[in-house]
């Protein structure tokens, strides 16, 4: 049981590998940090693990099976800019219930207010929108979550509050988490172990 990337390789320009022969493994309930220079491929690796882009080499498996191409994705991704991950023409109620109807406890834990549900995304702040992205990622079928700079644009108090709830929720459901960030102090707080991608690209294995 684990989210496994084996022999992963990716390039935008032919033969200019951003990374290659990269192995990575995340167990259920594990919290793994992913750090490195901007442009070193952190987000790209996250997208590959979530199945949003295909690597040029290697395979990704979830608990032994390849990533499903249809239906719900067991590996969910939460982005740095929630306003870019939400349909601007939907109301927040639709955003929240797109994949499932979150329980009242979940909605309350994330401090999502009822009055927000009738609004459009532009009428909420980044921190408020990010709560919806987290809620919808916590579908009962979710096994792993990639949190890509999830709280970078938030103030310290909101950041601490969101991680506090998120950590608890993931631990309770044994969800494996990859936290992408270049803030060392944050990773130190949250992760069991941290991978530095620029070291890995030199050597190959991240497991």
């Amino acid at each position, binding site marked *: 049981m684990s989210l496994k990337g084996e022999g992963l390789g990716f390039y935008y320009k032919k033969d200019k590998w951003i990374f290659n022969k990269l192995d990575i493994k995340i167990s259920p309930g594990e919290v793994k940090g992913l750090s490195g220079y*901007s442009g070193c491929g952190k987000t790209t690796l996250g997208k590959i693990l979530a199945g949003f882009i295909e690597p040029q080499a290697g395979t990704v498996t979830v608990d032994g099976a390849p990533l499903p191409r249809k239906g719900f994705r067991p590996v969910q991704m939460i982005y740095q800019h929630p306003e870019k991950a939400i349909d601007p023409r939907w109301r927040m109620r639709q955003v929240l219930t797109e994949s499932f109807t979150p329980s009242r*406890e979940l909605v309350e834990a994330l401090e999502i207010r009822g009055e927000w549900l009738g609004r459009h995304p532009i009428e909420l702040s980044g921190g408020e929108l990010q709560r919806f992205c987290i809620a919808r990622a916590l579908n009962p079928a979710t096994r792993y979550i990639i949190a890509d700079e999830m709280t970078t644009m938030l*103030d310290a108090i909101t950041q601490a509050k969101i991680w506090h709830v998120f950590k608890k929720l993931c631990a309770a459901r044994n969800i494996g988490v990859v936290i992408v960030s270049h803030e060392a102090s944050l990773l130190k707080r949250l992760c069991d172990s941290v991978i530095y991608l620029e070291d890995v690209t030199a050597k190959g294995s991240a497991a």
Partner: protein
Amino acid sequence: MKDKAQSETLLSVDNLSIGFSQYIGGLKRRTIQVIVDLNASIGHGEVVAVVGASGSGKSLLAHSILGILPGNAIMSGRMAYGGEELTAKRQAALRGKEIAFIPQSVNFLDPLLRVGKQARIGFDRKTAAARQRELFLRFGLKEKDGDLFPFELSGGMLRRTLFATCVREGVKLIIADEPTPGIHPEALNEVLTQLRQLADSGAGVMLITHDIMSALKIADRVVVIKDGRTVEVAEASAFEGQGEKLAAEYTRNLWRALPENDFDLMFAGDGGNGHVA
């Protein structure tokens, strides 16, 4: 740097309030108040950080100083620059010359124009090339970097290019709006060093950010904003320990919530909230 900082006020903002007038069907209008009571001041040679949550009105403060608020904004309060009232007419004359604005995103650069050319905009045509080279030198860019397009530059170089297009000789007040998020530590330190140097050479710098740790590396004072109000103006040195020297509870919480400090400890006793099976 402190004695020089306090000597003379360059810019002061008193009781600033900003509202937006909206039409709500037909000719009915309502006013939404976003900034209620904002106070800030900057001295020559001083770096003042403005911190607060997103949506607290940080950027609006910058825009009101520059006089670039949208047309439906209703503003009151008093702003003075160099001891005289900062009127709309003076704002128009000063911005881009004595008052420089460094925008939040490197997307403000023209993606289809070589960066050297972008830094020449606004200069007299005969001397533009020479002055651009001077600026590049000053901000640690090579002469041949001017031939590159924005997509060919690294994050740190892009920031330096933005500085070169915004900050001109004779600049006295620099307003930098979130110049740091999403860049790696090396580029971040470059930006901070650059701002500190500008202050040390006599300019006043307003650094708008939510990254307190970075701001504290260079700031003399910190203005803390919450819901459009100044909750506290603190000396940068007051941010230490458990925040005992900070006056407002909100500022203390902001300080303690940093991952370097207590992080989420203050939510640990939240009982039912956050506990979901």
